[in-house]
């Protein structure tokens, strides 16, 4: 097609949509430059990995068959028989792991740079919500291969929800679709993983990105500019592209060197396999549950642990409203220190599990 024909098509579309009117939004979008600018790439990286998840997830859907009689067999077939099935599945697994890691770094750097100050509280809330959805994706997706590791990880994970005071039993039955982890659980986790969570993620990500567009990027207090702001298109986008290309290469290498595994098929009447562990991002609560004693005063240990993690989560969610000093534009080093201490605690537990 010639350039003239392309222009004609573009003109035809523009006359009916008025899309060129929004061009000024992109032209006006700039990225501030200071010594912490490098952290601005984390959001774009998370977005890229999310797209990878959507694409590989859609491919896996072509062959995956939910149901206790077919799920395990279809995943085995994807990994063994389907051309490049092992690659698609392995990239989906690796990309999920790295996606959560990037989201956590994105959140940590946004926290330390106080990006949640007014008027960006909703940007923070939608971002934390997206991380919550990411964890939900990870938890629900983990069960889908229906192998024994998945089965017991889900038994434990849903039992943790069951330890929540007052509503625990209801929550557990809601998640499991009954009292035990069965085919009913697999059916709802599948629906959650491929329909409910994707819709929610699209909405939340859309809101997050619209808010970023609305407010521009936050400059941390006290950061001195090291140059004029960088235009988003094309300067920043091209740099993003370099990172995305590297990420794709890394995913391919990881998938080839450490392909996704499949344990023995889930059997509710077999013992849990030795050395069972959840995905890395649940290491911290997993280890905490191991270390917590059976009873703390009048309470059951697991209830205390579960409530403790819920309180920590609520504190993180509410950070913009708790950090009053930052909201007034004053330094709040104690708040930053508390956030970093929480991060180190979680990272410490995670490393402990990693090394054992």
């Amino acid at each position, binding site marked *: 097609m010639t350039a003239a024909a392309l222009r004609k098509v573009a003109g035809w579309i523009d006359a009916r949509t008025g899309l060129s009117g929004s061009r000024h939004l992109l032209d006006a979008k700039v990225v501030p430059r200071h010594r912490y600018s490098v952290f601005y790439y984390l959001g774009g990286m998370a977005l890229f990995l999310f797209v990878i998840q959507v694409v590989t997830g859609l491919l896996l859907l072509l062959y995956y068959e939910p149901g206790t009689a077919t799920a395990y067999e279809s995943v085995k077939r994807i990994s063994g028989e389907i051309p490049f099935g092992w690659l698609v599945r392995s990239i989906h697994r690796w990309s999920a792991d790295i996606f959560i890691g990037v989201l956590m770094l994105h959140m940590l750097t946004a926290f330390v740079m106080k990006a949640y100050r007014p008027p960006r509280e909703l940007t923070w809330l939608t971002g934390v919500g997206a991380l919550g959805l990411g964890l939900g994706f990870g938890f629900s997706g983990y069960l889908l291969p229906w192998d024994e590791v998945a089965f017991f990880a889900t038994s434990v994970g849903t*039992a*943790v929800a069951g330890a929540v005071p007052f509503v625990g039993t209801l929550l557990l039955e809601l998640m499991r*679709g009954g009292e*035990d982890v069965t085919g009913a659980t697999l059916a709802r986790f599948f629906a959650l993983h491929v329909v409910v969570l994707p819709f929610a993620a699209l909405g939340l990500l859309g809101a997050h990105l619209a808010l970023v567009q609305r407010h521009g990027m936050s400059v941390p207090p006290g950061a001195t500019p090291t140059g004029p702001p960088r235009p988003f298109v094309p300067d920043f986008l091209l740099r993003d592209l370099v990172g995305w290309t590297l990420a794709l290469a890394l995913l391919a290498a990881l998938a080839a060197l450490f392909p996704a595994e499949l344990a023995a098929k889930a059997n*509710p009447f077999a013992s849990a396999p030795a050395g069972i562990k959840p995905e890395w991002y649940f290491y911290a609560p997993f280890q905490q549950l191991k270390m917590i004693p059976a009873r703390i005063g009048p309470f059951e240990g697991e209830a205390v642990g579960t409530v403790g993690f819920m309180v920590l989560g609520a504190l993180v969610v509410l950070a913009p409203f708790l950090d009053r000093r930052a909201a007034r534009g004053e330094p709040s080093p104690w708040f930053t220190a508390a956030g970093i201490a929480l991060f180190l605690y979680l990272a410490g537990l995670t490393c402990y599990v990693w090394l054992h």
Partner: protein
Amino acid sequence: MSDPDRPALQRMPPWPERRALLDWLLGLSGAGALLAVVYPVVAFVFPPRQAKGKSKGAVLAGRVSELPPGSGIVFPLGTQPAILVHTPDDKWRAFSARCTHLSCTVRYREDIGMLFCPCHDGRFDLTGKNAGGPPPRPLPEHTVVVKGDEVYVAEVEVG
């Protein structure tokens, strides 16, 4: 506000009050419609509870010839996993195999002579008592009957 042509209007409450009543009725029917949608959806999402009576009779859990002292086997008892243990001092015991911590299935470990849950390193001694790690309660015990070579277990809690 006196309108000689419409005396009936004057006997009615003033407009703002009628408007408030209408708003209230509208809100009520709106809430009713919402409830009529939400309630069936919520009820649909929670599955009906299955009758949970004890399984009738005993099941064949294992054979004496296949379970020397100091060994154990996990088997289905009704809809739940159970574990049969032939203790080193030649006693037969059976328990629910679901860890009382977070519901993983326990196994018999010869090396420590205990029931062990690998999910969070929970331990139970061979009377089912929680004896280490996070489990808060003992494992419920079942009844064992040995008939010749066959070992039967019934879901009747002892004690």
